[in-house]
Structure formats: structure tokens, C-alpha cells
């Protein structure tokens, strides 16, 4: 052993003591650090630990179903799985993304884009990467739980509508809520929620939508569920029963077929909508998941406007149907007096311009009074009436009877139509009314515009003696708006007699649609989109018309009124729309007679209701008729009642 260390015991005691102080100082500083975290900021970190540990997984509440008036299902749900991507672990996400895209059959680029687009959302919030999981997807997720712990399945309820766009414009459809809807919902909607976009789905969204539940689970650091906390069950949305009669709806859908047009059937005594069809119609099942950009663009750019709800939104010239308004106005205002007759040589000259009657060139009506003018639809008679009444008196009665204003049906975005007047032309076109324009308006041409719903509503109201019931689609609606227009008994009698004659008298324009044993009344109308001359110049043959037919039965206090229009047709309204209206009225009576005759068949209905689940009477929600659109009908005091909680 060497002796290099011997006898050297000079220890630096001061510096060793300093080392002790340094040790005490370091430990004290560390303890202060722990004091800050564990005592001062403890609550903050407690919350963060809890947020780590607990993941909330929504339980989606099913939307309420829609039933027809007999309890048959019109709109239903079916369960489906959405694939969720958990994004907490970014490294794992980017590593597994190609495998996920491959396994689920998604495009990797789309996935990446979606991740970029959702970067602003909190990381603990999973995103839906595939709304509709196939059995293969489910198998993929289950078999890769261990190596790709980033995928979850969320049970959702998808809307199922009857196929082929059945009643599509009444039911509307649901879709992911828009930014605008989220903002105006006061926090009720969150991104990714589904809500009614149009139609009844939108109108009664608050009723139909349930309250989503929440499953709170404990998850470990790799996102695997290791335990469960409390579960808040979803509250399903309420089922609503509609006034629609599926049988009549089927007739209406079949009657329109692939024609472009609309049909609406009302019970004028109650305002109930029995059938509601607008063609062409999109299949809302296509929107139940997610509409592709291309599909949406195609629908919007389709010249046939399949997204337009023609029943409430098509504003068309009523053509000769308007003569019923003219007749009512004439009888009520006594201008001209009721025994007024006119001579129809096939045309008339007013303010220096020739106006043809529709029989021009083929025959002439000769001397006509009001009744025969309705029955034979003489234009010249009504030219004369209109000229004598003047535009403002026509406008006054048309508006009084409900034209130019929304009927207040419980659907969003109803159009009001247009009743021209001197004031209107001054306001919009800044010139005086040309008296010659009154002549066109007298036969429902010119600037007067109506919706098919208004036609059914107004004609039904007149035939009901001036009782106008607010049209509605929700059965057992308690606050149905109504208005009464004072019409003389004689007015109603003469007008309905005229409309009865249209179908049932010799020379009537609607004889083709006569129904045996039913007091079926009606009026056809053919609104010219283009004159015969212009059409032939353009090589379009006989010209383009909107063919109208409005019919009701029985003649006084009718139970059913049906308005139909077929757009862009070369036919007359009586030919194109008349048979469809007739078929619906016939179907209505067939069903009614069957019910009263055979008690057995009638007895079957309640059983079917019970099979469908809850009794609709017990579940039927209160009617909510959109207040701002019923302004004319519902007194302001009732508006509050009608608003949903």
C-alpha cells in the first residue's frame, strides 16, 4: 500500500457546513414546490385529474316518430352505429391513421382533412369519422381494440322515411345542425347534433327531439374503458300524430307520379291536412346520414326544383280557379248586380285591346249569366265583371278570403302569394295601375299569384260558408286558428251551385271527373305561362300551362277539399289535375263508407295503434303552430300559449 494519503486530516469544515446548508435549502425549495401544487393549486389539479379519468359518451335520444291519423307509421327510426375517433393521443392518431382509413374503407386524405378541420375542438372530444358503420367496420374495430385503441362506436338513431320521397315535403328531413342553428338555439344544439332542417321535422323539432343521455366511464391513459360511473338515460323524443291519411296520401303520390306539381287535401271543417304531396320530391332517406356536396348541388341546380315545397311555396297564377273568388266578390259587393249577364262572342275588347275567351276560334258562349259563366268558365263574362269591379275591389275580396297572406299551416317557409292592387303597383313598380291589367287578373292571370294550399284553403272556406280553419298537419292541435268571413247565404249557395255544375251539368268544363253518388263540386283552371302564339313561335307546340283543379264534396259544408296543380303541361287543368282530385275524393268516400258499413274493419284500427306502442292520444303533444306565421289567424293572446316551452 502506498502512503500518498497519510497524515492528511485537514478537513474543510466551513465548506462542509456550507454543504449542509445547501442541502437544507434545496429540500426546502422542493417542499415549497409541492406546497404550491398540493395545497395552493390542489383544486385546479383535482379537476384536471377528474377530467382525465372520466370520459362522457353521449347516449343519443331517438327522435319521436310520425304517425298518420290512423296510427300508421310514416317516419320511423332505425339504430345505427357511428364510428368515433378518439383524438387525445395525437401521435397514436397519426401513426394509426393509414390503418384506420384502410380498415374502414375511408380515404386517408379525407380523414386528414377532417382532422385539420376539427383541430379547434377540444382534444378529448371524439369526432365522427364514419356515420354509418357496416358490419365489417364493427368487426374491424372490435378485432383491433388492443392495437388501435382509438376507435369507438356510438349508437345513434337514424331517420327512416317511407321510400320514394313519400310525403317528403311535409315531413321534411333532418340533418346536422348548421352554424346558424347552433347560434340561435341558446346552447341547445351542439356541433354534430341532428335537427329538423325542413318541414315538420323542423316545425316540431322541439317536440320530436329527445334529451340525450350521458354515460360516464372511467378510462385509462390509453383511452380504454376500465369502469363505469353513473349513467344518465336518454329521454326519447315525443311521437307526433299527423292529420295525414296514408291511404289518401298514396293516391295523391300516385296521381302526381312523375309530373311536376302539387296536391293538398284538407278537411275544411277542421283545417286538417289529409294529403300533402309535391313532386318531384327528394328521398329524405338520402339526407338521413350525410348529403354529399355533389348530391346537394345537383338537387339545388335541378331545373325541376325538387327541394321546392310546391304546396306552400309555389306561387302560381291561379287561372280560372280565380273566377270563384271573382264570383264571390261580385255577389258580395253586388258590383255588378247578381243578374248581370254578358254576351260572349269568343272574345271581348277592353280599353282598346282584344282579350280572347278560351273557346275563341272554336265556338262562343253567347249570352252568359254568373252560373253558366262558372260552369262553362267563360272568360268574357269575368272580364266584364272585373272591369266593373276595379282592381282594388277585387284585391279587397281576394284578401278577405285569404289570398295574398300565409294560411298559417304548421310548416316553415310558407309563401304568401300575391294579390295585386293599385297601392301594390305604386309601391313596387312606381307607376299607376293600368286598368287593362284588371282584365287579366279577372281570370286569374297577370300578377295574381297563389299557392296550391291557399286554393284549397280559400275554396274550402267559401264552401263552408265563410268559416276558415287554419290548415295544420298535427292531429289534435288545440289552438287551431279560425276566422269567419261574413258571406251571404245566397253567395255561398250560388257559388257552390256553379261549382257543382262544372262537374255535373251539361256543358260543364269538369264533366270528365263526375263521381257517382257524391256531391262533387270543382273548378278547373289553366294558367298560361306563354301565349299560344309565343309557344308556337318557339316551337313548343300548344304552349305551356299550369293546370289547376280544385274540388270538394259535399257541396255545402264539405268534408274534403282538394287542390291540385300540374306545372308546365300542355293540357288543361281539368284534364291533368281533375282526375287526381277526383281519385282522392273517391278514395276518401270509399274509406268512409267502408268504415260506417263494416264495424269489423273499423274495430281493427285501435288494435293497430296499440301495436305501434304508446297510445297516440296519451302521447300526442300539444299543437304548436308557428306563431309568426299565424299572425292573421291566431289572436295575439294565444301566441304565447302556442309557443313551446
Amino acid at each position, binding site marked *: 500500500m502506498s502512503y500518498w494519503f497519510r497524515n492528511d486530516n485537514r478537513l474543510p469544515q466551513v465548506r462542509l457546513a456550507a454543504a*449542509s446548508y445547501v442541502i*437544507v435549502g434545496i429540500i426546502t425549495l422542493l417542499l415549497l414546490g409541492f406546497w404550491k*401544487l398540493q395545497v395552493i393549486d390542489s383544486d385546479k*389539479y383535482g379537476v384536471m385529474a377528474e377530467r382525465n379519468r372520466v370520459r362522457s359518451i353521449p347516449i343519443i335520444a331517438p327522435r319521436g316518430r310520425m304517425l298518420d291519423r290512423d296510427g300508421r307509421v310514416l317516419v320511423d327510426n332505425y339504430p345505427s352505429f357511428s364510428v368515433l375517433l378518439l383524438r387525445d*393521443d395525437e*401521435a397514436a392518431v397519426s401513426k394509426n391513421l393509414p390503418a384506420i382509413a384502410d380498415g374502414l374503407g375511408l380515404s386517408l386524405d379525407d380523414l386528414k382533412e377532417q382532422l385539420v378541420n376539427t383541430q379547434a375542438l377540444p382534444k378529448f372530444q371524439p369526432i365522427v369519422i364514419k356515420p354509418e358503420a357496416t358490419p365489417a367496420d364493427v368487426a374491424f374495430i372490435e378485432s383491433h381494440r388492443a392495437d388501435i385503441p382509438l376507435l369507438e362506436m356510438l349508437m345513434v338513431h337514424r331517420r327512416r322515411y317511407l321510400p320514394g320521397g313519400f310525403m317528403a315535403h311535409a315531413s321534411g328531413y333532418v340533418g346536422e345542425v348548421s352554424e346558424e342553428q347552433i347560434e340561435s338555439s341558446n346552447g341547445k344544439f351542439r356541433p354534430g347534433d341532428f335537427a329538423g332542417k325542413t318541414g315538420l321535422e323542423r316545425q316540431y323539432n322541439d317536440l320530436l327531439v329527445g334529451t340525450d343521455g350521458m354515460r360516464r366511464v372511467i378510462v385509462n391513459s390509453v383511452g380504454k374503458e376500465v369502469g363505469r360511473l353513473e349513467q344518465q338515460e336518454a329521454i326519447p323524443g315525443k311521437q307526433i300524430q299527423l292529420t295525414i291519411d296514408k291511404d289518401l296520401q298514396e293516391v295523391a303520390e300516385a296521381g302526381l307520379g312523375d309530373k311536376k306539381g302539387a296536391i293538398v287535401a284538407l278537411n275544411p271543417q277542421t283545417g286538417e291536412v289529409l294529403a300533402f304531396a309535391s313532386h318531384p320530391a327528394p328521398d329524405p332517406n338520402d339526407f338521413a346520414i350525410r348529403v354529399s356536396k355533389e348530391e346537394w348541388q345537383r338537387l339545388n341546380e335541378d331545373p325541376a326544383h325538387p327541394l321546392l315545397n310546391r304546396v306552400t311555396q309555389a306561387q302560381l297564377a291561379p287561372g280560372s280557379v280565380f273566377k270563384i273568388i271573382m264570383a264571390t266578390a261580385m255577389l258580395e259587393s253586388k258590383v255588378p248586380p247578381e243578374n248581370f249577364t254578358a254576351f260572349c262572342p269568343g272574345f271581348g275588347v277592353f280599353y282598346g285591346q282584344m282579350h280572347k275567351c278560351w273557346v275563341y276560334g272554336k265556338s262562343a258562349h253567347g249570352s252568359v249569366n254568373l252560373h253558366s259563366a262558372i260552369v262553362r268558365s267563360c272568360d268574357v263574362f269575368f272580364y266584364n265583371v272585373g272591369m266593373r269591379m276595379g282592381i282594388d275591389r277585387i284585391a279587397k275580396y281576394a284578401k278577405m278570403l285569404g289570398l295574398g297572406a300565409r294560411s298559417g299551416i304548421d310548416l316553415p317557409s310558407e309563401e304568401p302569394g300575391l294579390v295585386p292592387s293599385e297601392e301594390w303597383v305604386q309601391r313596387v313598380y312606381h307607376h299607376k295601375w293600368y286598368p287593362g291589367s284588371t282584365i287579366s287578373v279577372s281570370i286569374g292571370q297577370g300578377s295574381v299569384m297563389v299557392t296550391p294550399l291557399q286554393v284549397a284553403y280559400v275554396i274550402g272556406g267559401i264552401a263552408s260558408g265563410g268559416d276558415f280553419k287554419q290548415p295544420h298537419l298535427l292531429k289534435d292541435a288545440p289552438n287551431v286558428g279560425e276566422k269567419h268571413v261574413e258571406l251571404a247565404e245566397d253567395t255561398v249557395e250560388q257559388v257552390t251551385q256553379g261549382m257543382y255544375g262544372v262537374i255535373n251539368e251539361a256543358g260543364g268544363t269538369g264533366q270528365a271527373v263526375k263521381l257517382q253518388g257524391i256531391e262533387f263540386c270543382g273548378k278547373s283552371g289553366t294558367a298560361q305561362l306563354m301565349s299560344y302564339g309565343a309557344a308556337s313561335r318557339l316551337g313548343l307546340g300548344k304552349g305551356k300551362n299550369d293546370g289547376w283543379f280544385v274540388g270538394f264534396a259535399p257541396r255545402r259544408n264539405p268534408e274534403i277539399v282538394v287542390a291540385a296543380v300540374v306545372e308546365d303541361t300542355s293540357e288543361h287543368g281539368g284534364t291533368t289535375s281533375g282526375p287526381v282530385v277526383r281519385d282522392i275524393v273517391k278514395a276518401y268516400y270509399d274509406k268512409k263508407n267502408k268504415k260506417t258499413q263494416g264495424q269489423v274493419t273499423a274495430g281493427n284500427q285501435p288494435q293497430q295503434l296499440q301495436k305501434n306502442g304508446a297510445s297516440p292520444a296519451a302521447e300526442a303533444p300539444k299543437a304548436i303552430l308557428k306563431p309568426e306565421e299565424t299572425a292573421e289567424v291566431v289572436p295575439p293572446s294565444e301566441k304565447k300559449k302556442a309557443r313551446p316551452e
Partner: protein
Amino acid sequence: MKDTLGTRDYDWWLIAIVAAICALGVIEIYSATHGSALAGMHTRQIRWIVIGAVLMFIFSRLDYHVILDQAPILYIVGIVALTAVLIFGHRRFGAQRWIPILGEFFQVSELVKLIIIIVLARFFAEVRTDELSLQDLIKAGLLVGVPLVLILKQPDLGTALVLMPMLIVGAFLAGLQWKHAAAVVFIGLLMLPVGWHFMKPYQKERVTSFLHPEEDAKGSGYQVLQSKIAVGSGGFWGKGFGNGTQNQLGYIPVRYSDFIMSAWAEEQGFKGVLLALGLYMALLLRLVQNAQRAKDRAGMFLVMGVTAALGFHVLVNVAMVIGAMPVTGIPLPLMSYGGSATLFVFLAIGLVMNVRLRRFVN
């Protein structure tokens, strides 16, 4: 050498403190792993402790002067081993620091820490002046520099850093002059950007995420955040044994090893931290006391080398757990799970014991 070493001469207080810290470690390792695939880790840790304790007693019997005599050979062995590990070593967890002995993987650098303590003690003991000359300071720096560079190559920044306090404390006690200290600090600051240039990407990331934790919510910033959540949510009283959610659900990174203090703090709260850090303070102060009572400078340097290494481990590890220092991968002595690290601490304590046993021997 006379064999007058009785059991009474052992530092039983030191042994008691070490045993208590080991107990805390085993308890927390059990809590952190019993419900997972790692279950049973605590028994392996107990095995390491027992082996370590035996080695400690054996090591304490061998006169430290004999060990110091062999310092040059030990140094060469250390350098060769570090070079060998770079060439033949096993790559685990992204670093080449492991060699297999008897079916276990050992970190050579842990052994090198011990060797450097011995080599520095020998070196400083041979310095006869009261003030450390610049020449000697540079020599000491070179002695440490060579293994430091080799360890950095593995790469193992944590272990490399531990060599620094050994040098600093040794130089300080050997009479480091303030002007030299100031000069070294100044040069060190100038070298910082160069050091940054040579750092591995993951090391740079750790430093940047320490400086800007909000920019890195998933990498090492995430680890530190989860650790802070665990510590903070433990509160004063703790969540209780086996009840730490951050611990049990695996949010704390390597909760049985580097971040064991985080798991302990979550489950035992501030009171538990007080106990643990109190024990560490007692351990370190007891070591300093042993240094003060050493028979000669060589013994004093040995003990203080051990103190510097252990103190640095505690500081850097615990500061990392509370987010006060970047993540460096330095284990907490005696609490963190790990064979090499535990054996190193016991051997180091054995050295201390060695010095104590011989304080009255001529």
C-alpha cells in the same frame, strides 16, 4: 489491517434512513404496478435491495484506502467498459447503455459513477495545497470529461450530468478559488449554444417543452403535466394507498421508476412528501456528518462525492416531477425501481460506511 471493526461502529441511523426510504419505494412500486401487467415488480425491487445491502456490507469491510490505491486501474476499467458498451451494448428504450450480466441488464454508467467518485477522491486527496490551482482544476475536469463524453454518446444525459456535481463539490471542498469558479461559469455560459448544437432531438424537445410546456401537450410536456396533475390532485392528505387515479390509470409516465415521487405524492399527499423529502434530507445531512468525521481528506472526499451524487439525483428527479426542471431520466435514489441504480446507491453507502468504520483506526 487490524480487524477491530465491530457492529457498533456501523452508522445505524444511516441504515435506518436508507431502509425507510427503500420501504416507501417498495410500497409505492407495489401500489403503482399491482393491478397491471407489471405486477410483482415490488418483489424484484426487494431482491435488489437485499442484494444491495449485502454488497454494501461486503464493500464496507474492504479498506477504502485499498480501493483508492486501485483508482487508476478502476478508471481505465471504467473507460474501457463505457467504450465497450458503445460497441457491444444492448439498446433498450432508445439508448445503448446496457450490458447483460447473469441474465440481468446492467447500466455500465451506474458503475462508472462509483468509479468517478473514487477517482476524484483520490485525485483531490493528493492535492496538497489549501487552494485548488487552476492546473489541478483542469486536470480534474479532464478526468471527468472523458467518461462524461462517452456517457453522452450512449446517450444518457442524466447520468452524464450527475458527474458534474461530483466534480463541483470535490473541487469546492479541495479549495476551489472563486475567480476560477466564476471563469468556469462564464465559459459554461458561452458553451451553452454549442452544447445545444450537439444535443439529440429528443433532448432539445425536453428542454423546449420545459421552457414552453403549453406548446407540447403530448410529448414530454404531457408527461410533466400529467405528473403535476397527479401531485396537485393529491392535495394535502393524498388520495390514499392504491387510490391515485393518475397513478392507477397510467396517466403518470413510468410511475414505478422516474416518476415514482409523482405517484407517491398523489396517493400520500403533501404529508407523504414531507415524510419522503424529510428522509432524504436526513440521509444527505447524515452523509455530510460522516464526511465531517472522516479520518482523512480522502475519506471526506469519498463521502462527499456520494453526497453530491445522491443529492443531485434527488434534486433533479423531484424538481422534474413538479415541473421545475426538464425531464432528464434521472431516477430517485432507493425509491425508483431499478437494479443498477439501487445497487449503485447501496455500493455508494457502503463506501460511506467504509470511511466511518475506519475513522478511529490508524
